[in-house]
């Protein structure tokens, strides 16, 4: 799909399939309205979207663009439910995939485990050929290929992954081998590493191409079924999938590069945050998503999300690496369901164990007896037991109190409220770490950012977290509980391409890069952003520096160097302007902008919303204070509220602390300026 210009969607729909619910969101450009529905995930996608649409009074055939986020790739990888796969490598290197990087992240744990390859050793095959970075050492050996084909004929695999050394520079042998294997095995899914990534490091590329092949046939089947369902429902619009970088891709590209879909859900939340910030004319913000089991933070800097280029399936210690552009998101195991306990040595700990959905926190009344972060919020009155959670679940205050009393207050000899406040403080400290990981550790100062909080529990903790990090402003977008689906409405098709080049920075080398950038652009579409991963000569790790095409065309080497020095200084608090630097990897990201929804204005009300009730809330350990509770739907545009106060809605509650002032933006965002020590 190559076209430029602006499409005009009349109706755009997003669907985010989660474990329990599918969130459906529909934007109607004509009446500028957004409607939401939650459908149990058990139904098939087409039906779920249809049902969702029915709930939103829209008709299926009228949708111009349908955007879909799916967990099919990550689930197949985490549950190891891909297809039997073979790997073919350069002779002498089939074990690279099992050897990995030899590291032991848990240095003192002698019971450590390594990653487990997706392809076992008897299905890791070799072929005679050899490239060096600058030349061919050995042609692809014909008899060795024949032998390989004969071996592959005798094994039961549905997919084949190919990794040949230095294919990131010269993919000639990979291309030719793939062609031969395709001719021999037309029904098998075959993936070669250069099609997915052109960066050096053979273990990571092997792992990437194997993961892609392993899920390829499953994604193929999933997409074919979806397309059939949609066709049956008379859908004739554009159908896109959300990539891990937040951009959209079409179905045929998704089939080839399945691995790019690995983290689509969290990415959508960051895209949504980007749009919230644009709507408010704010450049930089932290996207903070707190749910039941984890909290995640991502960063928008100067209106662009930060993208990382390596991802671990599962975790760093034992996870298989994947080289694909992914939103730079840091996750910690703290959420509303995180369990608080006291160790036998008198230490308070919160998480990472979670009460999950069943039995869930004690206050759900499903029989849970362990104290969770949500129970602490209930005990402190911040989640009022007068309000059913998610519209239907009655909160059991007594159960919450008893859980906190038994698990934390009694062992530490504290009052129930002191214990509950302690749990919240510790949870906030660990979540603050997720935010500092994406800001301070990247050389960014949190105080330069606003905090955009969403997820079921994010708005309740946001003003405290912002204080913890010295941030002055918090924003709660509309519908924070289903914000990831919301983000899908704003995604654009986007292509990323990159090439490891390792180039000195001088006028002639710089001019020589233009040819490569043009090639990368051709691989992509329009609205180009070029960046270069750069380092001082002798360093290994790089930082990403934006590149203007003028710099390249005119060979403005010293300007690019200066820009790199600045980025390095900002990121690591030192730089060496007198030292030479080099470019390692060129990256081009190309987007297509489309006519996207605005955040629709909230309806006018005759008067400012009044509080629905007043209840006692513990903000300090000394005493509870009477605090007004407002329903978000009652609030009028431009209305101002002062903390302490709680603003509740069906999917979340927002806590304003003493001194906080909240403004209701005409488009529904809650803008909170922190008072007191927070500012």
């Amino acid at each position, binding site marked *: 799909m190559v076209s430029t210009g602006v499409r005009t969607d009349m109706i755009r729909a997003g669907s985010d399939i989660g474990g329990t619910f599918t969130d459906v969101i529909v934007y109607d450009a004509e009446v500028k309205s957004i409607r939401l529905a939650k459908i149990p995930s058990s139904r098939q996608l087409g039906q779920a979207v249809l049902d969702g649409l029915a709930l939103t009074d829209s008709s299926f055939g009228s949708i111009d663009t349908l955007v879909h986020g799916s967990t099919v790739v990550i689930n197949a990888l985490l549950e190891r439910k891909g297809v039997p796969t073979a790997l073919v490598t350069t002779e002498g290197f089939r*074990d690279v995939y099992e050897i990995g990087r*030899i590291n032991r992240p*848990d240095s003192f744990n002698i019971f450590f485990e390594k990653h487990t390859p997706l392809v076992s050793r*008897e299905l890791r095959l070799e072929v005679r050929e050899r490239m060096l970075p600058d030349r061919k050492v050995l042609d692809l050996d014909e008899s060795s290929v024949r032998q390989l084909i004969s071996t592959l004929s005798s094994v039961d695999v549905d997919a084949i992954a190919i990794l040949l050394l230095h294919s990131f520079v010269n993919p000639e042998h990979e291309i030719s081998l793939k062609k031969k294997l395709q001719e021999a095995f037309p029904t098998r899914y075959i993936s070669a590493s250069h099609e997915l990534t052109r960066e050096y490091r053979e273990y990571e590329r092997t792992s990437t191409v194997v993961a892609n092949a392993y899920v390829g046939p499953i994604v193929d089947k999933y997409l074919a079924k979806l397309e059939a369902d949609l066709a049956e429902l008379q859908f004739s619009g554009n159908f896109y999938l959300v990539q891990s970088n937040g951009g959209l891709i079409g179905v045929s590209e998704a089939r080839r590069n399945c691995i790019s879909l690995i983290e689509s859900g969290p990415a959508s939340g960051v895209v949504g945050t980007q749009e919230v910030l644009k709507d408010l004319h704010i450049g930089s913000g932290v996207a903070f998503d707190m749910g039941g089991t984890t909290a995640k933070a991502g960063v928008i800097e100067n209106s662009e999300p930060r993208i990382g280029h390596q991802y671990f399936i599962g975790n760093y210690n034992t996870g298989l690496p994947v080289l694909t552009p992914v939103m730079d998101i840091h996750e910690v195991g703290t959420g509303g369901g995180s369990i608080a306990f006291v160790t036998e040595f008198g*230490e308070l700990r919160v998480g990472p164990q979670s009460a999950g959905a069943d039995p869930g926190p004690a206050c759900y009344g499903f029989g849970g007896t362990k104290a969770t972060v949500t129970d602490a919020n209930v005990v402190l009155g911040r989640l009022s037991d007068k309000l059913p959670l998610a519209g239907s679940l009655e909160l059991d205050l007594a159960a919450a109190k008893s859980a906190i009393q038994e698990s934390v207050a009694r062992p530490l000899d504290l009052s129930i409220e002191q214990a509950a406040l302690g749990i919240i403080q*510790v949870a906030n400290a660990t979540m603050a770490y997720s935010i500092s990981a994406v800001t301070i550790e990247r050389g960014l100062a949190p105080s330069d950012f606003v905090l955009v909080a969403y997820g079921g529990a994010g708005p309740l903790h946001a003003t405290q977290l912002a204080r913890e990090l010295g941030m002055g402003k918090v924003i709660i977008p509309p519908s924070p509980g289903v914000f990831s689906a919301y983000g899908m409405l704003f995604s654009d098709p986007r292509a990323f391409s990159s090439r490891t080049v390792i180039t000195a920075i001088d006028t002639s080398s710089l001019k020589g890069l233009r040819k490569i950038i043009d090639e990368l652009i051709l691989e992509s579409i329009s609205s180009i952003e070029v960046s270069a991963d750069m380092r001082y000569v002798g360093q*290994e790790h790089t930082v990403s520096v934006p590149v203007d095409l003028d710099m390249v065309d005119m060979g403005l080497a010293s300007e690019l160097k200066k820009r790199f020095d600045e980025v390095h200084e900002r990121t690591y608090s030192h730089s060496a302007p007198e030292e030479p630097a080099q470019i390692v990897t060129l990256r081009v990201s190309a987007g297509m902008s489309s006519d996207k929804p605005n955040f629709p204005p909230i309806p006018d009300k005759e008067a400012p919303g009044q509080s629905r009730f007043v209840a006692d809330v513990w903000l300090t350990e000394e005493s509870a204070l009477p605090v007004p509770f407002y329903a978000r739907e009652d609030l009028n545009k431009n209305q101002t509220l002062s903390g302490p106060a709680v603003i509740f809605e069906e999917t979340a509650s927002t806590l304003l602390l003493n001194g906080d002032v909240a403004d209701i933006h005409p488009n529904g965002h809650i803008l909170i300026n922190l008072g007191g020590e927070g500012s």
Partner: protein
Amino acid sequence: MKSADKRRAIDAEVLRHGFIAITEEMKINLMRTAYNMIIYEALDFTVGLFDREGNTISIGLGLPMFIRGMSETVKETLIEYPHEVMRPGDIFITNDAYITGSHLNHIVLTLPLFENENVIGFTSTMAHWIDIGGVLNGITKDIFSEGLQIPICKLFSEGVQNDLLVKIIAQNVRDPDLALGDLRAQIAAVRTGEKRFYRLLKRYGHDALTFAMKFTMERSAERSRAAVKAIPDGRYEAECYMDGDGVVDKPIPIHVSVEVAGERMIVDMSGISEQVQGFYNSGRTAGLSAAQVAFTCLVDPLSRPINDGIYEPLEVILPDRTVVSALKPAAMRWWMTIPMTVVDTIFKALAPAMPKSVPAGHHADLAIVDMNGTHPQGCHFYRCLGGLIGGGWGAKWNSDGMSATICINDGDTHNAPVESMELKYPHIIEQHALREDSGGAGKFRGGLGVIQQRRVLADSAINAQIERTQDAPWGLFGGMAGSANKLELLRKDGSHELYPTGKVLDEVLAEGDAYILYSGGGGGYGDPYERLTEIVLDDVRKGYVTIESARQDYGVVIDRQTMEINLTETSGLRQGK
């Protein structure tokens, strides 16, 4: 505990996360900005936060074996520069090998932290520079041939850099740009820690911070005491030997004895060899580190932060002048090899007392092949650490050992990608594979070692100090030993040269010559005849174990044509045992 202190247990937990975050950030900062591969890939560095007396509050690893280096350096610094003469903006530097316990390549920077005019703690970083001068190839026999020695002195005095010192450093190292780049990265790391510490101090105040440090250490001490108490009392001993010191052709004995009595553990290293002529010595700090690393692995491997409270129940008896408590002018360049075998020997000693906590022996060597020469393109001097390929780890009471993993001296250390090596050096790596049959047989099998074959495309000097080529990684409880480390040279004409003690000193690899490096496999655990036959078959199908070894070591007979188990012959072998 008093009631007010109970309330402060909450602050302590919040601050515990704060301490970990400080050292994590220092670590990331240093790792990402360092110039040399030993820091950014091998993570040959450590950063830390210390209390006013130099006790460890939190360490960001780096290498486990660096667990004492910074703390001991801070304590020594305090002897020469007491609290009252330290000033904000000071940064101290040293690479005194007999303080860090290691080689001169380890540069330690220490920055005092202040509240008003009082020192209340330190940030510190110890990192490996690729070159510190000294003899390039061959073996050294004293510290003076190993490079520049920097006594404890001020690199910065109240924020002003000691330019003379920097010039002296630049004058004495082979690649000043690289060295000064790493120095800048280390300065930034201790200052990053300083900034974050002051933020915590401002937020929580001195009292809460001091309380949290104390609380963290006391809880760690309690946890350790409880774990030691669970180990049956007794005196446990083990020994093994190193190949030699590269000068005199005789093995170096390592004997340790561990006494467990109630809540205390005493590690007695008096039986370890005297210091040696060749550069395999390390200082007292390294000997203590070996005991603490073993202790952490067995007693409290997962708690964070790593702090000195953990070691409260541990006593180490270590006389001067052993090979892990060497005195000046002992040669120290290859300091790291022997202490990691000491760690393994402590595990071996404690095996009867804690059979479910210790693994069988591992390959216990970094397996480094040090090469240098002139790059034909660009004609510049290059130095390349080949090898560093990981090796097999020992099996445990319930599982096989891990294959191809870095030894206990190191932690989150990465190998260098083949593609990266071939981009930088005039080398071609012809094989990088698992070493079949190298894992010791057992009910649970030892992990496999690695083979790396590297050919040079231009003449190159080669030095290798591969150890433990004789005393192979041992098995436990009937498990067999794994294969030992091994190195051979493969000349262009096809001839092989085997180095029986793994020591290649100042050889030349001519264009077209290669080395083949084999890292050892881990020891097995339990009787190999008790290993399930179908698991042995699976190992054979995957090529981890050969048909010959299956028959000979495991008593499992597999038909080469059908690749199925011959049940009759197998049961005959296994019963006839």
